[in-house]
């Protein structure tokens, strides 16, 4: 029996489009402002840009891992921002892996249960599809938008995303 791929056919073009938008925002991140944060409680520019770059790796976490336990040793090794070029290269590699992972995932697998836990404590429970949506795609859109505000506050021209920005019509 051949595997059906309704989900991946549906998701891959959208993921590719979001990756292209994200790449332009990451490419606009300047070097030399790694410690910038708009507020004491905010992430630094370097951490936020690194987080956006690493989020495509959540595709394989949600689509191939049985679940994700934050309490497990070395469950999460944050990607570290060094330079904008190095960060972009890391993103490119993870983004290519994410597209390949989505394309390789069958409908049956997308429908399997998946959970995000901390030991016995359940943070998220749903299908792999809904986990991928929330943790890989929408989460990426969320932090990328924050990064756009950081660029704005640093006086860096902001690439357009879903519509024009003040700098790009």
């Amino acid at each position, binding site marked *: 029996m051949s595997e059906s791929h309704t989900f991946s056919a549906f998701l891959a073009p959208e993921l590719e489009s979001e990756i292209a938008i994200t790449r332009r925002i990451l490419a606009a991140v300047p070097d030399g402002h790694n410690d910038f944060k708009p507020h004491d409680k*905010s992430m630094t520019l370097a951490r936020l840009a690194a987080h956006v770059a690493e989020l495509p790796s959540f595709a394989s976490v949600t689509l191939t891992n049985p679940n994700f336990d934050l309490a497990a040793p070395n469950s999460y090794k944050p990607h570290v921002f060094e330079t904008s070029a190095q960060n972009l290269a890391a993103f490119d590699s993870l983004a290519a892996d994410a597209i390949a992972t989505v394309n390789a995932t069958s409908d049956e697998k997308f429908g399997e249960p998946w959970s995000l836990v901390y030991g016995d404590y359940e943070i998220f429970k749903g299908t792999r599809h809904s986990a991928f949506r929330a943790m890989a795609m929408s989460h990426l859109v969320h932090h990328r938008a924050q990064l756009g*505000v950081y660029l704005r506050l640093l006086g860096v021209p902001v690439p357009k995303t879903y519509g024009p920005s*003040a700098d790009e019509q």
Partner: protein
Amino acid sequence: MTTAEILLEDFDMEMAMTRRILAAVPEDRPDYKPHEKSMPLGRLAVHVATLPRLGINVLTSSGLDLATATWPTLTFASTEQLLTDFDTLSSQARTALANSSDADLEHIWRFTVGDRVLSANTRSCTFRHMFFSHMIHHRAQLGVYLRLNNLPVPGVYGPSADEPFTP
């Protein structure tokens, strides 16, 4: 699974998160903006609250021509009004989505300005791009505005500095 069922899988969760951010919007500074080029807080909040209208439009019309379309202005009245508008529109968007067949969602929806085509993709793809992800994008900006105004920021995909993760 139908395409509508696929699209509904994360609908309620995301709309609930958006509602929490909208409920945290203050009423006394709609003109605040973090930068001269930024949207003012009131306008941004109304934009987030009323984006489901675009989702409804995508699902129930054949296209949108900006040259002739009339669209309500984004004027902030009150936080209560934001939530009322959001609740009404998100409920209508949910119904419109649930009522959409696979064929409906395959329909090519045209976004134009007169003769110029801005996009012409399937309704399903346009719904995600122009409404759903677009809403998540501006909701995140709104979270930064709350932070810069020293207001507590609800946690979205994970903990925020004000809603730490406590197992």
